[in-house]
């Protein structure tokens, strides 16, 4: 069964450092998303991406965040200068169409900022 894969599974970084979280969406999917989940809290929408541009973003997705699809398979989330409060599980998701309810999620990358 096709799946969304994310690397690394766990990333530890020092405050102020840049991190790039990587995702390989399902190959025939056209819509890509990033969500985050702070430990013990709700899953929160960050950004959606379609046709090589951001289609929507939340208030969490400020200038410190960026996304990119550098080639035909990868979808990345970059945090330029990490803060302690960026520590969370980051989930990538993809969907074939625009209907978000049918998005497939990756297993997540746990980001720990120290």
């Amino acid at each position, binding site marked *: 069964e096709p799946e*969304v894969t994310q690397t690394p599974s766990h990333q530890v970084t020092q405050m102020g450092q840049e991190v790039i979280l990587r995702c390989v969406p399902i190959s025939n999917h056209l819509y890509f998303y990033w969500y985050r989940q702070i430990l013990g*809290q*709700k*899953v*929160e*929408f960050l950004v*959606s991406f379609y046709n090589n541009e951001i289609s*929507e973003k*939340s208030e969490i997705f400020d200038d410190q965040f960026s996304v990119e699809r550098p080639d035909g398979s990868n979808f990345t989330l970059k945090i330029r200068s990490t803060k302690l409060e960026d520590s969370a599980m980051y*989930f990538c*998701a993809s969907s074939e169409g*625009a*209907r*978000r*309810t*049918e*998005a*497939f*999620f*990756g*297993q*997540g990358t746990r980001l720990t900022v120290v």
Partner: protein
Amino acid sequence: GESVGLHLPTLSVQEGDNSIINCAYSNSASDYFIWYKQESGKGPQFIIDIRSNMDKRQGQRVTVLLNKTVKHLSLQIAATQPGDSAVYFCAVYALGGYQKVTFGIGTKLQVIP
């Protein structure tokens, strides 16, 4: 503002019994109501959704009920199995200019063998 909440943080159910997980929402403009399952160490997995113009939808061993009058959503799992142990999130999705999926906090379902 938008809020989605769950009545119980943890639900323990005997194997073979039916489970009912409840959820309340606040935004009456929501178009889709969704249930996700999240197993330990994994991302959310879509279970079933229901559109706002319906009040019941059935899947394999699962039924979702929507009561728009009281803004309440429930997930019923028939003949609960150990593999059903997970955290279940309800979520809402509104079509239109801001198409984000808003998740609730989650209910942990523990199946007692």
